[in-house]
């Protein structure tokens, strides 16, 4: 149906995109936009980045080695596994739900991989695929129970937290720990570095090129469709910013051991799921269900399918993270996926700016939040602090992040943006 038979009147003053008004002025425009967003409670990544800078400064002043290339590379290695789990947590949080079983699932899948690969002698690839599919199956099951019986996801996954841990012990049998032989197979996953300098640069350049091209393509199509476009300077500014950032990271990595494979895997997942959540119909439906379940249902969205699939994805990512962790630790054991895995994965998503109230967030939260948590853990290790202090400080940071989330929500409500 052509709903546009009426001749379009001149664009009313207030129908003009307000973003354009500020973006036109380049950097100053960004600053205006930024101030307006902060006042409106749309903090975005700001608190995280400020927090990260503060944390890095504090640790650097205490121990200059903290900002050395070697230590920062270690930091990135440390966050890859739990960060991967956290990407799945972000998806579940977008629905306004929670998955407490990811730690246990990651441990269980690591042990499944170890038993298949080391004990049963399966080749690496099929063993990894089966281990990941175990995670997917668990997620399908939990999502099914949650959506079909209306049991709160908190409870379903709490049961999973205990249950899958039991299964993990059963899978291991009377073997306490299964070691992966170093320098081959599974161990290579998290311990491979691309020592050749060009690999890192190539990845960075390809990423920036892809980003710039997508911006340009978008610009071209918007122009063709007669829509408001961003000024060209804006596009150049963004691409240049990304280029500088990525090159800085690559230079840093190359001055140590090179670009680590687990980092590429983790960041790859972040980018992939960011694209899925923001650019695809499926991702749009995740946001819709998280924002207003009833509206989503009335729009014809299969809410249960979205829920089950998101829980499946979350557990799948937990399995991937568990495998990365086992690879890095060169072993799967009864304690795999235990202790702070779950806490860190959820804390990273929340600290990174994913709302606990659903419908707001991005998978980049997993990356940013994990950098914060990883930096704290890494820095405190460097300073030789004890576990008691580390737990309390990490807990404090999580609490602060949740308070910021709640305050931002209040700010949005006050500005009619909740």
């Amino acid at each position, binding site marked *: 149906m052509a*709903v546009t038979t*009426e001749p379009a009147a001149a664009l009313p003053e207030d129908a003009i995109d307000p973003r354009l008004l500020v973006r036109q002025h380049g950097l100053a425009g960004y600053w205006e936009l930024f101030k307006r967003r902060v006042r409106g409670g749309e903090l975005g990544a700001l608190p995280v980045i400020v927090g990260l800078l503060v944390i890095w400064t504090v640790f650097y002043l205490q121990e200059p080695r903290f900002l050395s290339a070697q230590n920062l590379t270690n930091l990135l290695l440390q966050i890859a596994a739990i960060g991967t789990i956290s990407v799945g947590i972000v998806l579940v949080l977008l629905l306004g739900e929670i998955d407490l079983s990811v730690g246990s699932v990651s441990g269980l899948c690591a042990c499944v991989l170890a038993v298949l690969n080391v004990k049963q002698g399966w080749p690496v690839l099929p063993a990894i695929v089966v281990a990941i599919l175990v995670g997917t199956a668990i997620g399908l099951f939990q999502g099914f129970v949650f959506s079909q019986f209306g049991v709160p996801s908190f409870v379903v996954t709490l049961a999973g937290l205990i249950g899958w841990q039991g299964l993990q012990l059963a899978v291991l049998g009377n073997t306490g720990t299964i070691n992966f032989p170093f320098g081959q197979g599974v161990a290579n996953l998290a311990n491979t570095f691309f020592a050749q300098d060009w690999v890192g640069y190539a990845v960075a350049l390809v990423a920036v090129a892809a980003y710039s091209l997508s911006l340009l393509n978008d610009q071209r199509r918007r122009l063709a469709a007669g829509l408001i476009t961003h000024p060209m300077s804006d596009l150049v500014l963004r691409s240049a910013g990304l280029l500088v950032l990525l090159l800085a990271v690559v230079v840093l990595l190359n001055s140590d051991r090179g670009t680590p494979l687990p980092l590429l895997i983790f960041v790859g997942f972040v980018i992939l799921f960011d694209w899925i959540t923001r*650019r695809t119909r499926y991702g749009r439906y995740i946001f819709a269900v998280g924002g207003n379940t009833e509206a989503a249902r*009335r729009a014809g969205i299969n809410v249960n399918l979205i829920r089950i699939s998101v829980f499946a994805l979350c557990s799948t990512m937990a399995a991937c993270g568990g495998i990365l962790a086992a690879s890095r630790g060169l072993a799967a054991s009864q304690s795999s996926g235990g202790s702070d895995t779950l806490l860190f994965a959820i804390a990273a998503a929340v600290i990174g700016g994913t709302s606990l109230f659903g419908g707001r967030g991005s998978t980049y939260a997993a990356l940013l939040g994990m950098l914060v948590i990883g930096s704290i853990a890494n820095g405190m290790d460097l300073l030789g602090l004890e576990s008691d202090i580390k737990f309390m400080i990490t807990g404090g940071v999580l609490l602060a992040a949740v308070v910021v989330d709640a305050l931002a929500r209040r700010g949005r409500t006050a500005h009619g943006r*909740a």
Partner: protein
Amino acid sequence: MTSAAPGGTGPILEMLGISKRFGAVQALTDVDFSVHEGEVVALVGDNGAGKSTLIKTISGAGPADDGVISFAGEKVAIARPHDSQALGIATVYQDLALCDNLDVVANLFLGREGRRGAALDEVDMERRASELLRSLAAKIPSVRIPVASLSGGQRQTVAIARSLIGEPKLVILDEPTAALGVAQTAQVLDLIRRLRERGLAVIVISHNLAEVDEVADRIVVLRLGRNAGEFRVGEATQEDVVAAITGASAARRPSDPDTDGGA
């Protein structure tokens, strides 16, 4: 009320003997209802008369327990919102059912997003959204801001505009003007007339009889979950309608030969 003849002027939607029960409450009892293409039917009645319940049986949000629904002359089963949408029925609920966290474009196209390969075609959706809103003379600050930051009238406009995206044959509006100011009410009524000009069937739930008189062709009154009267606009006074709503008089049907005065 007769069934549609193919290619004839039968009703696009015809419902016969619709009943719906919630636990101990009989919300609808043997209700008949129909609407033709290019016709605006106002569904009126007191609170709890069953208007919203009847709408939900059409939209699939609360399927009827009993009764026959025919759409475009064919008997259909509407068990879920998807069935209703697939038939070409668009419903704008009183609570608007918008996702506050999504922007205007995302809300307009929710459930029927345009795609380009695997990705959403944001550019095309934004263009169509802008055109659509402009054709409705809607004043929305930007199609790219979250719906949460819009005023009540703007949200209503978005909700109605959204119902038009799917090229429906029948649009159901549940109290579309209840929360609107004077100017925006006029805009919505104007919009309803435009829908009729396009040959769409429109069902409007309203409490405002002045508005109903202004925009509707026919008025169907429900009372306590039953048909309580049916009037052709211009042939009945507001007092007649009010009497039917409150039950102060016996139902009067224009088609009934035994009602007084051939006029």
